[in-house]
């Protein structure tokens, strides 16, 4: 297993000694000693505390707020309501780019979802602001809300999340279906889920004349600076946005929300710094969620068990004022060899906050449903689930016909199945036991795209042989502080201990979004290129300097390693310090970009195979995941320790999605009934008895020059279906609703 963990895939760039090492987190000591400052830790002088008042109805109008009572409360400084709230420069509904949701900034008295901000109270203390908000005692004119898939208003749309097409068709599904030997259908519903980052959304805003300083956890520092500037009507150069550490984001901190703007506007209006931290219950409203889905799949098989046609339809919810549709059906586009393929999405509008990207958006629920449908099809074909998936292995992307840039999925199946012991599985449901418990084995295929965004970076080599690297990366806990520094060190050809990393604020070159599992690839490429650019400049100095041992090595070239340049044509070398000293330079500064050039002509995905064992009490229906093993092919692994942690985290997320996570609405009021961490369950350690994530070797020369894919989200995919299928195998009951409740198994 260790050998597998340490095998490194490569792109066509040869990295040095840093990438690939299982370094511990460079920011670990800061975090365990509490020295790492999160946004809410900032306490500038003169700070005012802000608390949002949020709507207690899901639809209607605020008819009265007792502003006088709130303002009379000792310590309360100001109450903003639609009557007096400072205005943004743009309309709250302006979409300046595809990642802008309505900015709820108290522009009118209407209520569109429970938990919507309806007022902001500023006070000298947090306690006073909280009490002020309570004293507002809003009164409403309430209308009957619609909050579930059953009640919501259908609408047709051409696009799903991120502006992707809502439907796809390749081949001729209807013709293939009529000629098929077997028809398998499956429906799976998934629940509404919340990100539940442990760090609540927070902002500390301070104006210094025209200059605005913002501390807020953010997954897309550059883009957010632009967005803030646009809504504030100021120039982006006036803003400094700091986000050195995020206590979890999972997508929710990639999207700005109106509360942040209100805090900034209040700080300007009142001439004092303002801090706004959401209460835990306020994390279940204005800052996004994953919408519930109702998915229907049909898999048509020929007599040999080949997929003749695959159809995947999703019905999902969005808010009444914005559109973000969980693109679950897209999970079927590129995974199995379906010569005839049709996918679709149907929207419904409900009185809920706008959903948003949440770890593996679309892929997570889509993969869950697809994998359950695949087991249904395997059963119909009379085949073992793994054998069936191998039989329908896609050699090219079925939706586009493109070749894969790399696809180590076969190795994933082999390695994970071997470690799991899958060959010992007995086919019939309810045929395996452990004592009185039913035992079930299930599997699922994991897949996640490998996007790249736009990033820029600087890398500066200094006269003393150390370096500074700069890019505004976001570390949500995934380890950007460490993994990116490793890549940069190799680009610079120096030891990582000599690298100072400046990151996490907006005065640095933009590192792009930390999302879509593309941050390491994108920001890493920029940093590597910046380092290589600095080294190139050094090499030019040295090879043109007659006093250098490298003089004239230009034709054969030089190699950078451990802070020295080596001739390729003989043994001679020279340290960076000497080159700079002779040139009389304090530093050389390299610049680099990270992006994918042109439209890709290959399909680019990470893959994986997840095998789950569950125990189910046959009388009580309680499920325990007793073993969970995944193997992943994710290109070059920059840091095996961090990658494993990401993959395990994704898989544990899958346990939650399969068995626990679910927001429960009161359908009459439209309010959630479990908007806290006691009521909304995510897995605890005791739910994760034995778990392992392997990585298999994968060499991808196409995905980017460094061969890096991504590991942040793929662990969720495959896992949920594997657990669902294991429960099915254990009990004989096909899951149709996630999370699977004990009641559904007795």
């Amino acid at each position: 297993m260790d050998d597998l963990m340490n095998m490194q895939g490569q792109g066509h760039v040869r990295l040095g000694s840093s990438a690939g090492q299982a370094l511990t987190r460079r920011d670990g000591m800061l975090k365990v000693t509490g020295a790492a400052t999160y946004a809410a830790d900032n306490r500038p002088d003169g700070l005012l505390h802000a608390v949002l008042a949020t709507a207690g109805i899901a639809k209607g109008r605020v008819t009265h707020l007792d502003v006088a009572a709130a303002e009379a409360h000792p310590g309360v400084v100001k109450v903003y309501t639609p009557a007096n709230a400072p205005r943004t420069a743009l309309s709250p509904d302006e979409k300046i780019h595809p990642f802008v949701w309505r900015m709820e900034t108290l522009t009118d008295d209407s209520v569109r979802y429970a938990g919507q901000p309806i007022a902001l109270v500023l006070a000298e203390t947090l306690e006073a602001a909280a009490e002020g908000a309570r004293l507002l005692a809003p009164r409403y004119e309430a209308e009957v809300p619609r909050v579930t898939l059953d009640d919501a208003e259908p609408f047709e749309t051409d696009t799903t999340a991120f502006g992707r097409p809502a439907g796809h068709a390749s081949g001729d599904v209807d013709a293939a279906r009529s000629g098929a030997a077997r028809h398998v259908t499956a429906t799976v519903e998934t629940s509404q889920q919340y990100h539940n980052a442990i760090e609540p959304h927070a902002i500390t805003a301070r104006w210094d004349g025209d200059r605005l300083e913002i501390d807020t956890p953010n997954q897309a520092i550059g883009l957010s600076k632009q967005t803030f500037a646009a809504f504030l009507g100021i120039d982006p150069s006036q803003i400094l946005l700091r986000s050195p550490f995020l206590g979890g984001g999972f997508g929710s901190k990639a999207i700005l929300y109106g509360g942040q703007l209100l805090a900034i506007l209040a700080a300007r209006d009142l001439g004092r710094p303002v801090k706004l931290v959401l209460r835990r219950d306020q994390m279940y409203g204005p800052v996004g969620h994953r919408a519930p889905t109702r998915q229907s799949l049909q898999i048509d098989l020929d007599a040999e068990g080949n997929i003749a046609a695959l159809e995947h339809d999703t019905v999902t919810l969005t808010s009444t004022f914005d559109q973000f549709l969980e693109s679950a059906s897209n999970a079927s586009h590129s995974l199995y060899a379906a010569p005839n393929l049709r996918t679709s999405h149907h929207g419904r509008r409900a009185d809920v906050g706008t959903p948003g990207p949440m770890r593996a958006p679309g892929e997570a629920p889509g993969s869950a449903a697809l994998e359950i449908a695949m087991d249904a099809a395997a059963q119909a074909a009379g085949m073992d689930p793994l054998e069936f998936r191998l039989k329908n292995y896609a050699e090219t992307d079925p939706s586009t016909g493109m070749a894969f840039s790399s696809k180590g999925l076969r190795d994933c199946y082999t390695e994970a199945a071997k470690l799991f012991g899958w060959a010992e599985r007995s086919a019939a449901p309810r045929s395996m036991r452990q004592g009185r418990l039913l035992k079930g084995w299930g599997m699922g295929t994991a897949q996640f795209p490998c996007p790249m965004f736009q990033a820029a970076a600087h890398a500066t080599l200094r006269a003393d042989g150390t370096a500074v690297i700069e890019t505004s990366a976001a570390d949500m806990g995934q380890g950007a502080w460490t993994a990116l520094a490793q890549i940069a060190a190799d680009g610079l050809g120096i030891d990582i201990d000599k690298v100072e990393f400046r990151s996490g604020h907006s005065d640095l070159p933009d590192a792009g979004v930390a999302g879509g599992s593309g941050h390491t690839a994108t920001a890493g490429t920029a940093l590597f290129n910046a380092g290589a650019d600095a080294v190139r400049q050094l090499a030019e100095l040295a090879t043109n300097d007659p006093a250098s041992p490298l003089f004239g090595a230009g034709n054969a070239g030089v190699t950078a390693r451990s802070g020295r340049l080596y001739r390729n044509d003989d043994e001679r070398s020279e340290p960076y310090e000497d080159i700079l000293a002779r040139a009389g330079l304090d530093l050389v500064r390299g610049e680099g970009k990270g992006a994918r050039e042109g439209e890709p002509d290959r399909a680019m995905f990470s893959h994986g195979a997840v095998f789950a064992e569950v125990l189910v009490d046959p009388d009580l229906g309680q499920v325990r995941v007793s073993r969970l093993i995944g193997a992943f092919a994710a290109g070059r692994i920059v840091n095996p320790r961090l990658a494993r942690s990401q993959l395990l985290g994704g898989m544990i997320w899958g346990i939650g999605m399969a068995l626990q996570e679910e927001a429960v609405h009161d359908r009459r009021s439209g309010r959630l009934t479990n908007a806290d961490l006691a009521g909304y369950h995510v897995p605890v350690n005791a739910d994760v008895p034995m778990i392992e994530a392997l990585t298999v070797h994968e060499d991808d020369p196409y995905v980017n020059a460094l061969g890096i894919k991504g590991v942040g989200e793929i662990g969720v995919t495959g896992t949920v279906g594997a657990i669902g299928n294991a429960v099915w195998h254990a009990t004989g009951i096909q899951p149709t609703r996630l999370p699977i409740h004990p009641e559904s198994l007795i």
Partner: protein
Amino acid sequence: MNRFDYVRAETLGAAIGAEGALLAGGTNLLDLMKIGVATPDRLIDISRLPLDRIEQSGGGLRIGAMVRNAEIARDPQVLARYPALAEALLSGASAQLRNAATTGGNVMQATRCSYFQDPLSPCNRREPGSGCGALGGATRNHAVLGWTEGCIAVHPSDMCVALAAYDAVVEITGPGGLREVAMEEFHPLPDADGAGKPPLMPGEIITHIRLPDPGALARNARYVKLRERTSFAFAIVSAAAALAIEDGVITEARLALGGVAARPWRCRKAEEALKGQPASAESFARAAELATEGARPSGDNAAKTPLAQRIALRALERAAAGTPERLPALPASVFAGDDNG
């Protein structure tokens, strides 16, 4: 949070009759204050009262109201003689909460009914006469026994279920002196119009919980708790069972259910039916069926009745198999039995 005064009661005398809300470990009361469900003008901190000991008493134990949940669970006497109590406690909340939570606070903890916790919903328990917001709502976790349209909430405590099975008695002191109530009856059931009268009169304080000598029940006692999350979750349903078995015959039986009613639910009929019967699967199955006599769903929780019967059966079977030498690593878990290989 509203503004409130804070006073610390240094003596029991200072706490009795004091006006305000008693603050013990604060793990429940402070949460309720933060969400605006409890709005006391005055907090009386009783956490330092000298009621923090577990003493021998007439063959049984007397547990002070300030003893922390964690301390009870690791007390050698409790582990040896009342193992189902230790198991129940360890199955509740988290280690951090158990270190802070007190005996008295655990008994007095509020229901987790989400409508009770939501000041915008009507709730007869929070605001008598306002109606029951849960009726007709999301009621998967609500009562199947002893409920009325006035209130369908369940009492969330694990500890109290085991205490009820052990015939524990609550010692209460108030302005009017001492009184005692059986744990089993301490939490009033709802009446036709509401949640029923409060368990304590104003100014009263719980000082101790008394546990009688368990006798032969010590050897065969277990607590089992059904939940979707293996730890840090309240019971969907739970059961405490204790048996005295002589030569394969049950001479005494105790059975109480959690998660089904506004109080820990002692199953007297089932206990009667077990007495004198062989400690056999048939006896337990019959008893389990009797355990939920009178149960009916209060909403979308019809599954609770069969689940309660089955958890009762499991607790009886485990109790009959004998209390294990050490409590399992996952206390009270369905998966912590010797019965599953």
